[in-house]
């Protein structure tokens, strides 16, 4: 699973800490998600999409072999 959280965060000009606080998770979780080590639940992914005012497919996409 690829994601563009880091890019969206940079476009919006928010830090990992701010994003973590807004969606109610630890900064460790944001780091793990951005690094692709952790795939968030649907609820968390939807919260991120809502915060970045985008569609969930723009934030997360399946890899070719998935």
């Amino acid at each position, binding site marked *: 699973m690829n994601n563009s959280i880091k890019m969206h965060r940079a476009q919006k000009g928010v830090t990992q800490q701010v994003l973590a606080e807004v969606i109610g998770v*630890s900064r460790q979780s944001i*780091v793990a998600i951005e690094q692709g080590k*952790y795939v*968030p639940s649907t609820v968390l992914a939807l919260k991120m999409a809502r915060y970045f005012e985008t569609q969930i497919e723009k934030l997360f996409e399946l890899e070719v072999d998935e």
Partner: protein
Amino acid sequence: MDLIVLLPNGFKKMGWVLIGLRIFLWSIHLFFDWEPEWLVVNYFTVFNSQFFSDTTWFEFSKQNMLYTILTIFPIVGGLFVGFSKEKIEDEFINKLRLSSLLWAVLINYLLLLLVSLTIFGAAFFNVLTIHMFSVLIIFITRFNFLLWKNRKEMTHE
């Protein structure tokens, strides 16, 4: 995602205190033969089997509670440490916790298998005593290692 039910964060500190106390009491018991008389109480036992005496069921008998304390403190302390919320508990931390628990159970029984095949006699009973706490020890160590590793990977922004 539903988070697993955990104790409040404050229990973690209490858990470490209990574990610390256990280590302290066990050390003075081991090095100074400390076995205080005031800890001998008439205690209700469900099953009691001592060397050179009869086995009894549901009876009051004189017991030194030091050994009970040395067993209960690390178990309760370990449960408090392992199953208390982090300051920010979320689904990622939950995942680390559950994967550490799975890992601990697996490693614990693999070690027991190895020990069963290699250690015999009285030493095996010592191993079984350690085995009472080993799953908690492995779980807490693994979970805290993963937390530390993830914290270390956080870059400053």
